[in-house]
């Protein structure tokens, strides 16, 4: 254990507050200042949260910062701005726009909390309701039995995990128990890929190319980029395999298990097509499954093939969650995989048939304990790195996955939300993402700057790490690996934070 700490003792990035003024457009509450305001500044001197601000030398008070407002329930306080305003110019109401944001899985408060963490790098309190969604099951019904907070020193705690536990080959240890999941060039812009790669480099972890080839812009970050080999084999070349420390085989994706990747014609722009060696503006549907794999022996042949091209890379196998997911995992291990990556049914995607997202293959919450227990019984649990993904939205979801039996997690959508995604779900067609994240449109992809994005993702990871440290310290642990399989620390039921109605 001490060894691991030493091996992973890299200097962790510090939070770097990232200006994100344009993301103030939606909040729980709307504070309105009428024209009758005389800019006396009383509200600014009263509000302890900083909603109102008056800059010395300015004739007018600044527009209210809605994000900091605690809402009409503030009326019990002596400093309630609405009641104190001498000209009755202030009013506070629930934001109408807020109700249009998010969905039961990514609630509006979860999106806003993720944005706040990405902006400031400050962690969310562990009992905050934004740590869970409102989907009424799975992670949203699992909660840690949280002991009281204790003082902790983040530098003394380890959230690191080993990616190679087979006892041979290169050792790779990442200081946080997550790496970035595959998002192809084409489904997202090169700036999004770069932002993720820069954040991965800062945190000494990884991001993944997805199945659309390896854009040259990522090569400077090659030590932190996983090459994905998916069924379409788009843009997979010897050199892309040779330059990677980890190579991932994508058998299936949780959002569309058994269907293969979808890139609808609009998004297959000439650059994307060149990378994928395909005809521009044709829809690209990856076949399913690998046409060369009919059995676990064929699967081993695949892994051997990569091993012979790049003997020093780790092999990750990404599979979906069918009924026999535990057999698939064991088979992957015996075929030589270092990392078994389970992608649950509620995972993210750039485009997938709606019928597949809800209905095909089980949610990840069920698959993790199933596979964990089976690997333990098989006697190989300590040789496999089991990673979970597919509907993990928050640091607490990651911690719950680990408590259910995973070693770590793979993160996708949260990265994008950090980049200001609002989960509108229109990534699949047309010009793609109007917010410049999941698009290859030559105008839209300029909306998002990769440096800015990298800082936001990095801040999010930093905030998450502090949340994990907080959790570990409360549980009396110093390493996140101690948490693995500790289902005794979980409770199944409704969210207490939500019941109290914070």
């Amino acid at each position, binding site marked *: 254990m001490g060894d691991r700490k030493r091996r992973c003792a890299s200097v962790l990035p510090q939070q770097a507050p990232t200006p994100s003024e344009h993301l103030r457009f939606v909040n729980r509450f709307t504070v309105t200042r009428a024209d009758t305001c005389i800019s006396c500044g009383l509200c600014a001197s009263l509000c302890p949260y900083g909603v109102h601000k008056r800059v010395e030398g300015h004739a007018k008070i600044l527009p209210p910062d809605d994000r900091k407002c605690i809402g009409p329930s503030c009326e019990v306080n002596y400093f309630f701005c609405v009641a104190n305003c001498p000209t009755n110019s202030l009013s506070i109401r629930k934001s109408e726009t807020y109700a249009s944001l998010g969905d*039961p899985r990514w609630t509006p408060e979860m999106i806003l909390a993720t944005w706040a963490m990405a902006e400031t790098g400050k962690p969310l309190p562990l009992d905050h309701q934004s740590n869970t969604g409102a989907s009424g099951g799975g992670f949203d019904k699992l909660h840690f039995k949280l002991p009281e907070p204790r003082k902790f020193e983040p530098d003394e705690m380890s959230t690191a995990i080993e990616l190679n536990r087979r006892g041979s080959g290169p050792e790779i240890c990442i200081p946080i128990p997550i790496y970035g999941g595959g998002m192809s060039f084409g489904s997202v812009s090169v700036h999004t890929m770069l932002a993720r790669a820069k954040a991965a480099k800062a945190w000494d972890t990884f991001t993944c190319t997805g199945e659309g080839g390896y854009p040259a812009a990522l090569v400077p970050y090659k030590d932190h980029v996983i090459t994905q080999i998916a069924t379409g084999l788009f843009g997979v070349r010897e050199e892309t395999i040779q330059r990677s420390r980890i190579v991932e085989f994508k058998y299936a994706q949780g959002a569309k298990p058994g269907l293969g990747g979808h890139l609808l014609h609009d998004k297959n722009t000439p650059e994307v097509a060149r990378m994928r060696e395909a005809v521009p503006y044709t829809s690209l549907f990856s076949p399913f499954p690998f046409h060369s794999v009919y059995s676990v022996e064929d699967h081993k042949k695949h892994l051997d093939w990569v091993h012979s091209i790049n003997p020093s890379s780790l092999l990750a196998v990404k599979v979906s969650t069918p*009924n026999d997911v535990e057999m698939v995992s064991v088979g992957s291990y015996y075929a030589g995989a270092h990392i078994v990556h389970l992608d649950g049914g509620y995972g993210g995607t750039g485009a997938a048939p709606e019928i597949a997202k809800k209905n*095909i293959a089980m949610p990840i919450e069920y698959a993790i304990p199933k596979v964990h227990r089976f690997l333990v019984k098989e006697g190989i649990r300590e040789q496999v790195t089991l990673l979970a993904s597919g509907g993990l939205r928050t640091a607490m979801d990651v911690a719950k996955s680990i408590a259910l039996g995973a070693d770590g997690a793979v993160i996708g959508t949260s990265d994008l939300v950090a980049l200001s995604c609002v989960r509108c779900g229109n990534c699949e067609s047309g010009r793609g993402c109007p917010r410049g994240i999941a698009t290859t449109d030559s105008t839209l992809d300029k909306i998002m700057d990769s440096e800015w994005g990298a800082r936001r993702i990095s801040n999010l990871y930093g905030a998450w790490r502090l949340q994990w440290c907080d959790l570990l310290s409360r549980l009396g642990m110093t390493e996140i690996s101690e948490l693995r399989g500790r289902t005794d620390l979980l409770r199944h039921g409704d969210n207490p934070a939500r019941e109290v109605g914070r």
Partner: protein
Amino acid sequence: MAYERYHISFASAPNRAPPVPKFMIVRADNCVNCGKCERACIYGVHKRKEDDPRKMQDPINHLCKNCFMCIQECPQGSLSMVPGPEYNALGRGIWTSLRISTIWSESETGRIPVLGAGYRGMFAGPGFDGMWTDMSEIVRPTRDGIHGREYISTSVDIGSKPPWLEFSKEGEPVTSMPQLIELQIPTVMDTTRLRASTDEVLLGFARAARRLDSLLLAAPGSLPEDAEAELNSHFVPVYPEGTDIRSILLPKGVRMAELPFTPAWKEDAKRFKSMYPNAVLAFRMRATKGLEKTLLALVRGNVDVVHLVYDEDGMEFGPSARRHEKDSLKAAHMALVGKSVRDQITLIAGGGIAAAEHVPKTIICGADVVSLEKALLIALECRDCVTCSLGSCPIHLKGASAEWVEARVTNLVGAWRDQLLEVLGAMGLREVRRLRGELGRAIFHEDVERESFSDIEGGASRG
């Protein structure tokens, strides 16, 4: 005759009624008409007024896709977005606004709904929402992957299949083959419980049924004459309770008829079969508690087909302890399997089929064929109002032409068939007949909760 692969071709059938926007953009009075919203929106919600370009038009709400860019870019903070009230008020029970609007777009385009971002709904739910279908990482239906979907068969048979064949000493088959109706899709259309229809609508349904090689179930005499004539062998008359069997005169070409299930079913069956030995006879039965026993009795009485009818939310009828179709069909299927008679009877199930995934899920739970009812009306943009009066119908069903109805229903059934192919492909099955009763290839909420969470405090008990 040259072999022709079954194929459903789509043609766009645009909505007739004004769209129901999911989101509404509200522009406050402090808008200064700067036009930043017009540049920010890639969907064309914001436009300047044509007659007075100094001002912005009212937002075109149905084009809004919830991206918030206009709100974010507005320098005045004048824009806000609210969930569309009319959209939110659509539907009831399992017929949610999302399902209704999905059926509308499937019927308009015939396309499978494909969207970005992961699943956005509730984790699980009652009925079919508490069920996932299996997939296979390496087994596929054909060697052609996604491009081989056309090789997946969705054909089903209605009628009984003899458990074995007998041959004479000379090697000639001597088993008399029962009547079997082969359909190319596992869905039939049932108009008998529809709240409203017009002659044009029924004619459109009839043409769609014929074009899809499906069946149209309707009360005798309820169809306009030309519809019945066009349907011919695709027409299944559904005789109401109280029909005197002796008075039945099957229209020409009809291959199958439905009789109400009554205590006198044995005599009815006997009489009907003696009158029409070549027609397939189905008993139409309201699903109630204990239907398993009745089904076993029907099999013993050589009944070939039973049409189980559930309510529009997919629940059994009866005063209490009503089961959902999923559990009811599972029990029925397992009871028949337990007595080794499952293949001697065809089960048609209808009611509560509100989305594409309900078709494979109903089949997994044990139905051979699924009947579509309310979905057919929703396909015509029905708003599922509480009371239905053609006089005040918000979509003016009266004005719907048979051609448009035919196109909409064809699109819907085609889109649902394509989604069935997705499910079958993911499971590695190459025909829908294999899906029937494949309970082992489904994942049920209560089972996985128990398997995965029983050791967690407050989790499902192992019981």
